[in-house]
């Protein structure tokens, strides 16, 4: 039995918010292995388990690869599951991440973003998320501690939806959010139960049962494989609108919603815009507030869903703008720019041939500071006025 949990407003870290989110969703099997900056999630869930708040099979695994295999197999058996990791832990799961999505196992995991490569780069950065963008998972990104908790709950609705059945990775910035304490509204367990209840009314997903005929991993080759691959892609596409809908329903239940795939901040009348994600979005909003006071028509699109890439909504949001700047907290090896920038460029024909600038900033715990953001906005504005501009900017190195 999961003990009752009433819900309360508390000041907790991002890691604790993730753990609360998971605990409230009543996972059956939880497998965890510690790594900075995620460790507190492991400890907190173990505490919940010891205190009777979390009635799950807790597996203290000997490595992340096993953690992912355990939760994937438990999900295929019919369970609700949770795991969490970061950077090297995520890399150590790489094969299992692929297997999990290939099996369409509705796993929910938290990835606390950390810089890599560089073993000693114990710092924030989204390179770990970027390195797993093509593993067939849904990847969503939180901006603050409240959103972490809320996204974990929404992730179950998304991953386990009968029409989706794709694993979901909830990302948030290590250090900046993992250890940041903020006031978080923690819902009561019953409220979460109600929010997740519609999943129970859906058709049952195929399960591994003793003596049953289900064979997993038996894609084989040729047409059988291609069919499954096609269906996986189609489910990823469906996940976009589904995520918008879940966000809306979440708003109805909890009086908080975020915009779904993207959040638009002053975009309606904006002439120039930034695209950002994660914790830095909060700072960007502050700078926009002050720029707006000075009459600059600037807006922000916060990317909340990175996989699948919200191409339709991004195209719509940016169409008609005069110039765009994209802030990336990671880089795209083999290209000279940030990865989110590179992906946005793929929408050039929908958005229009306007200046698009890549800002690489915030790597390895460097602050994406107010000063940096102001500088970015200045150069995007200059570009919008037809001035010559530099396409790729390593903001940190410009100091």
């Amino acid at each position, binding site marked *: 039995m999961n003990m009752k949990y009433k819900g309360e407003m508390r000041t907790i870290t991002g890691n604790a918010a993730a753990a609360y989110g998971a605990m409230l969703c009543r996972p*059956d*099997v939880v*497998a965890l292995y510690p790594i900075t900056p995620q460790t507190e999630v492991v400890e907190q869930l173990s505490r919940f388990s010891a205190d009777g708040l979390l009635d*799950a*099979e807790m*597996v*203290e*695994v*000997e*490595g992340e*690869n*096993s*953690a*992912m*295999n*355990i*939760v*994937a*197999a*438990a*999900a*295929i*058996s*019919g*369970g609700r*599951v949770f795991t969490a990791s970061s950077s090297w832990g995520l890399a150590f799961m790489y*094969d*299992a991440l692929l*297997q999990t999505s290939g099996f369409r196992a509705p796993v929910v995991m938290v990835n606390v973003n950390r810089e890599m490569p560089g073993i000693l780069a114990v710092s924030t950065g989204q390179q770990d998320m970027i390195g797993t963008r093509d593993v067939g998972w849904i990847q969503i990104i939180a901006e603050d501690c409240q959103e972490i908790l809320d996204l974990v709950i929404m992730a179950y609705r998304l991953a386990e939806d009968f029409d989706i059945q794709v694993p979901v990775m909830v990302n948030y910035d290590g250090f900046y959010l993992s250890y940041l304490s903020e006031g978080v509204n923690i819902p009561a367990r019953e409220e979460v139960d109600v929010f997740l209840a519609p999943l129970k009314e859906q058709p049952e997903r195929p399960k*591994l*049962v*003793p*003596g*049953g*005929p*289900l*064979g*997993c*991993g*038996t*894609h*084989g*080759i*040729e*047409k*059988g*494989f291609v069919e499954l691959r096609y269906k996986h892609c189609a489910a990823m596409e469906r996940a976009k609108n589904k995520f918008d809908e879940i966000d809306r329903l979440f708003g109805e239940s909890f009086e908080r919603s975020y915009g779904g795939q993207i959040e638009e901040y002053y975009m309606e009348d904006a002439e120039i815009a930034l695209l950002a994600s994660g914790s830095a979005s909060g700072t960007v909003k502050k700078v926009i507030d002050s720029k707006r006071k000075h009459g600059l028509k600037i807006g922000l699109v916060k990317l909340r869903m990175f996989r699948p890439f919200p191409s339709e909504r991004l195209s719509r949001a940016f169409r008609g703008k005069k110039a765009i700047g994209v802030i990336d907290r990671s880089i795209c090896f083999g290209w000279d720019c940030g990865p989110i920038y590179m992906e946005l460029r793929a929408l050039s024909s929908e958005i229009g041939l306007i200046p698009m600038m890549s800002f690489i900033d915030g790597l390895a715990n460097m602050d994406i500071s107010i000063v940096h953001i102001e500088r970015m906005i200045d150069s995007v504005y200059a570009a919008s006025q037809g001035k010559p501009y530099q396409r790729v900017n390593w903001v940190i190195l410009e100091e």
Partner: protein
Amino acid sequence: MMVKKKKLSKIFDYFRDEDPFAGGISICSGCPMELLLRFMSKVLGKDIIIVGTPSCSAIVLYGQNIGSWHKLSYYGCLMTGVASSATGITRYYRKIGKDVTVVCFTGDGCAADVGFQPLSGAAERNENFIYICYDNEGYMNTGVQRSSTTPFGAKTSTTPIGVARRGNETTGKNLPFIIAMHKVSYAATATLSHLEDLAKKLIKAKEKKNEGFAYIHVFSPCPTGWGFPMDLSIEVCRMAVRTNYFPLWEAERGKFRLTHKIKKSRPLKDLVRMIRKFSHLTDEEMGMLEKEVHERYRLIEGVTQMMPLKETP
């Protein structure tokens, strides 16, 4: 007229269910692993979940596209994720209070090498499932490469015989012993020449898995990769037992018992001479192999005396 019924072998008493595999499956003729797969399924029953990996056994367990060669519930995973996947399945079923028999079925390459970490982890946590490793002393599915259970001197495609190198240079891991030393609920060795011994161990593993981890290491010679005629497979198994190359024992929580004691062991040469992968061995090399076999036997004999397991009636 009275028809005198032919008396069936005692081994039939151990079968719970019929063979769930199709008649013609794509495993080399004479492969003891195929026999093990069929035998195991008949003894453990059809309501099991098999977890397996890429290997010679996968060819049959996976099936092809939408076709299947068996009626068992099967979870095919990566070589790195067998024991962990089995953990996930068993933990979920434990959570919902349903008894389930999960059986990992892998080669030695998975168990001793790339899948060793999760195996050791699951053994240490004493997870409630059965792990069966069929030991053909190498990576057979990829074309007979060395694994860490390949014996000293053996010729494989990665330890070929040439002027500079002469076969496998290491003595190999004693995997069943290593697993037993995790103090698991049950660990045993078995082979296909001693079917009753194998059947008893399978049944015991199924019982013991309710208490914790149950491991069976099955000596499974490979006619194709080792070089011996396919009709000699069972003879090779038997000779491995008679020479003490592969002693049969079982262990419960770190206490050991020989289940088939050899009164007077045959010389190792009797086994080695049957197998082409050893055909190049010089007397000196043969001596080294003998030394290793002898040491391993002494080890297991020693622990059965120091930490004896009483025979259960």
